[in-house]
C-alpha cells in the first residue's frame, strides 16, 4: 500500500511537472498581418530606430559580408553547432513582413518566434529583454521600412536534441530572466542609461562575459572576458589588463573611432561594433563608456602610478615626432634571443617609429593584445594583419603568415609577452599558434561593409578629407 502510494505520488509529480513545463514552454502564435505600408511609420521614429539598431549591432549578425543588409544567412559557429542568422527585412514570405509590432516586441522581450516557438539564444534575448517598449517600437519602425529582401533562412546545423526548440524552454528556465530594465536607485542617470544600453541592446556581455557549459553567461563573472569567433574578448571588469586604466573619455573615443593610442585597435568582431558606435548619438555612446568604465572600478594607486610612468617614458608621439627618413626602415639588430631579433627586424620599424595611430603601429607596451589573458588576438593580428577598411580612415597592418613559421611566431610572441606584457608567459602558446595556422581555430575578420551599408546617420562618420 505504502509503495503504491509512493509510486502514485511520483507519477502524479511527473505528470504535474511535465504539464507545468509544457504550460511554461508553450506559447501561442501571434497572428500574421498584412505588411504595413512604409508611410504608416513616423519618420522620426524610424530615425531613432536606426540609431538603436546601430547600438544593437543588428546588421553585424543579420548580414553576410558583402550581402544584403539584414537579410540574414550569416553562419554563427557555437560549441553546439552552427546557427544561421535569419532574415529581418520586411519580406512577407522569408523575412518579418508579416510580424506585428506585438510579435516583434515579444521576440525581443521573451525570445519567441512569431509562431510561438523558442528562439536560440544566439539571438541575445537575455540582453534584448531589457529593451523598453518604446525602443522596440522604434526598432520595429526602422526594420519594417527597410527594403524587403527575399532570402529564405538556412537550416541550422545542430545535433539532436538541440535541434528541438522546446528544449530551449528548459534553458530559459535555468538561465533567462525576463526584463524590462529596472534602474538602479543608487546610481545616477548616466550610469543607468549606460547600463540600459550596454546590458540591453548593446549586449556587451554576449562576448565579454565567459559562458558555462550550456552556453549561458556565467552570472558571477560579469565582463570577466570571453570568446568571440576565434578572438578573445578582453575582461572589462576589475580584471581589465589595460596598461593605462580606461577612462570615460578614452573609452568614448575608442568606441567611436575603433582605436585609442593607450589601448590599441578594435579588430575581429569588435571592429564592426565600433563602426556602428560611430553612428549613435554622442550622449548614448558616452553613457555606454561611462558605465563600462565604472564596471572596471577605481584602479589601484600602484596601477595608476605605473601607467603614468609608462606614459612619461614614451616620449613624443605625433606628426613629425620622429620623421621617417628613407633609411629609417632598419632598426639596429638587438641580437640575442631570436624573438627579440625578429621584433627588431620585422615589427619595430613601425611599432617604434612614433607615428601616431591609426596609421602608425602602437607602442606595444600599451597594447591590450600583448597584455591580455589569451594570446589569440595577438596571433590573429600577426598572422593575418589588419586589412584596410574600404573608403575610410582606418588602421592597417601587413600580416606575416607567409614568412613566420610556427617556431618563429612562438619565439616572437614569447618575447613580446615577456618584454611588454608585464604578465606571466601564456600557457599553451605552441598549441594556440598551431591551431591558428592550421585553420582549426578560425578567426573572423569582418569587413565593415554591412555597417556602411546601413548607417544610422552618415553625417557622423564622414571621411575627413
Amino acid at each position, binding site marked *: 500500500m505504502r509503495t503504491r502510494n509512493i509510486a502514485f505520488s511520483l507519477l502524479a509529480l511527473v505528470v504535474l511537472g511535465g504539464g507545468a513545463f509544457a504550460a511554461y514552454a508553450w506559447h501561442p502564435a501571434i497572428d500574421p498581418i498584412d505588411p504595413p505600408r512604409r508611410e504608416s511609420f513616423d519618420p522620426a521614429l524610424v530615425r531613432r530606430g536606426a540609431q538603436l539598431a546601430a547600438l544593437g549591432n543588428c546588421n553585424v549578425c543579420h548580414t553576410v559580408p558583402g550581402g544584403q543588409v539584414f537579410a540574414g544567412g550569416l553562419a554563427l559557429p557555437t560549441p553546439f553547432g552552427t546557427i544561421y542568422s535569419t532574415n529581418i527585412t520586411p519580406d512577407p514570405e522569408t523575412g518579418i513582413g508579416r510580424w506585428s509590432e506585438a510579435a516583434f516586441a515579444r521576440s525581443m522581450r521573451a525570445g519567441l518566434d512569431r509562431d510561438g516557438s523558442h528562439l536560440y539564444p544566439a539571438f541575445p534575448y537575455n540582453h534584448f529583454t531589457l529593451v523598453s517598449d518604446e525602443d522596440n517600437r522604434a526598432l520595429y519602425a526602422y526594420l519594417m521600412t527597410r527594403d524587403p529582401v527575399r532570402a529564405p533562412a538556412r537550416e541550422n546545423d545542430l545535433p539532436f536534441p538541440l535541434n528541438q526548440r522546446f528544449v530551449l524552454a528548459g534553458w530559459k528556465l535555468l538561465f533567462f530572466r525576463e526584463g524590462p530594465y529596472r534602474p538602479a536607485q543608487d546610481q545616477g542617470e548616466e550610469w543607468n542609461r549606460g547600463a540600459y544600453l550596454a546590458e540591453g541592446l548593446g549586449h556587451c556581455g554576449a562576448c565579454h562575459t565567459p559562458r558555462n557549459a550550456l552556453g549561458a553567461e556565467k552570472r558571477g563573472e560579469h565582463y570577466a572576458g570571453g570568446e568571440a569567433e576565434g578572438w578573445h574578448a578582453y575582461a572589462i571588469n576589475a580584471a581589465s589588463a589595460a596598461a593605462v586604466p580606461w577612462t570615460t573619455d578614452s573609452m568614448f573615443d575608442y568606441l567611436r573611432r575603433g582605436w585609442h593610442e593607450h589601448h590599441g585597435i578594435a579588430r575581429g568582431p569588435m571592429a564592426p561594433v565600433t563602426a556602428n558606435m560611430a553612428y549613435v548619438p554622442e550622449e548614448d555612446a558616452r553613457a555606454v563608456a561611462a558605465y563600462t568604465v565604472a564596471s572596471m572600478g577605481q584602479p589601484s594607486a600602484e596601477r595608476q602610478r605605473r601607467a603614468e610612468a609608462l606614459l612619461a617614458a614614451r616620449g613624443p608621439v605625433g606628426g613629425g615626432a620622429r620623421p621617417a627618413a628613407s633609411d629609417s626602415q632598419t632598426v639596429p639588430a638587438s641580437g640575442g634571443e631570436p624573438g627579440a631579433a625578429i621584433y627588431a*627586424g620585422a615589427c619595430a620599424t613601425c611599432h617604434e617609429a612614433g607615428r601616431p595611430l591609426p596609421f602608425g603601429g602602437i607602442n606595444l607596451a600599451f597594447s591590450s593584445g600583448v597584455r591580455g589573458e589569451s594570446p589569440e588576438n595577438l596571433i590573429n593580428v600577426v598572422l593575418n594583419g589588419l586589412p584596410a577598411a574600404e573608403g575610410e580612415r582606418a588602421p592597417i597592418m601587413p600580416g606575416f603568415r*607567409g614568412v613566420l613559421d610556427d617556431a618563429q611566431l612562438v619565439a616572437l610572441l614569447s618575447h613580446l609577452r615577456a618584454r611588454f606584457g608585464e604578465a606571466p608567459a601564456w600557457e599553451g602558446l605552441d598549441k594556440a599558434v598551431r591551431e591558428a595556422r592550421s585553420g582549426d581555430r578560425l578567426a573572423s575578420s569582418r569587413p565593415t561593409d554591412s555597417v556602411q551599408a546601413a548607417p544610422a546617420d552618415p553625417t557622423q562618420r564622414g571621411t575627413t578629407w
Partner: protein
Amino acid sequence: MVKLTVNDRQHEVDAPGDTPLLYVLRDYLELHAAKYGCGLGQCGSCTVMVDGVAVFSCVTPVMLLEGKKVTTVEGLGTAENPGPMQRAFIEEQAAQCGYCIPGMMMRAQALLQRNPRASDEEIRTHMQPNLCRCGTHARILRAVRRAAGLIQTAEAAPAVRSAAR
C-alpha cells in the same frame, strides 16, 4: 651571413639578419623587379613569393627566410622567354607607369599557382592588398584572367612548373 634561395638559386649574402628582403634582392643580388614603394607593407609594390605565398619583402627581415624559397618576377621568365604571367601582362598592356606591376604579378602568381581556376571574385579579393596609383586595375584584372588561361594550357605548363618548384 645569410643563406637564402632565390629563384631556385642558393645565395650567401653578407647582410645583417634584420635587413629587409627587398634590400637584399635589390642591393645584394641585383634583382630589381621588386620595388620600394611605402616601406610599410601597405602598397604591395615589393611583393614576392615565399614558399608560394605572396609577402611584402620590405617588411620581411632576411633572417626569417633560412630554408624557405623566394620567387621574384625574374623567376617567372626572361625578357626573351617570358612566362605566362609576364606574357599576359604584356599582351594586355596592363602597365601605365609600371611601378606596381612586378608586385601585382607576384601576388597573382601566388593565387594562380594554388588555384588556376580562381573566379573573378577570388582574383579581386586576393589582389586587394596591392595598389596601383595610375588606375590600370581593369587591365591588371584582365591580365590576371589571361594568365589563368595561359597557365591552364599545355603550352605554358613548363614555365609554371619551374616557377612553382
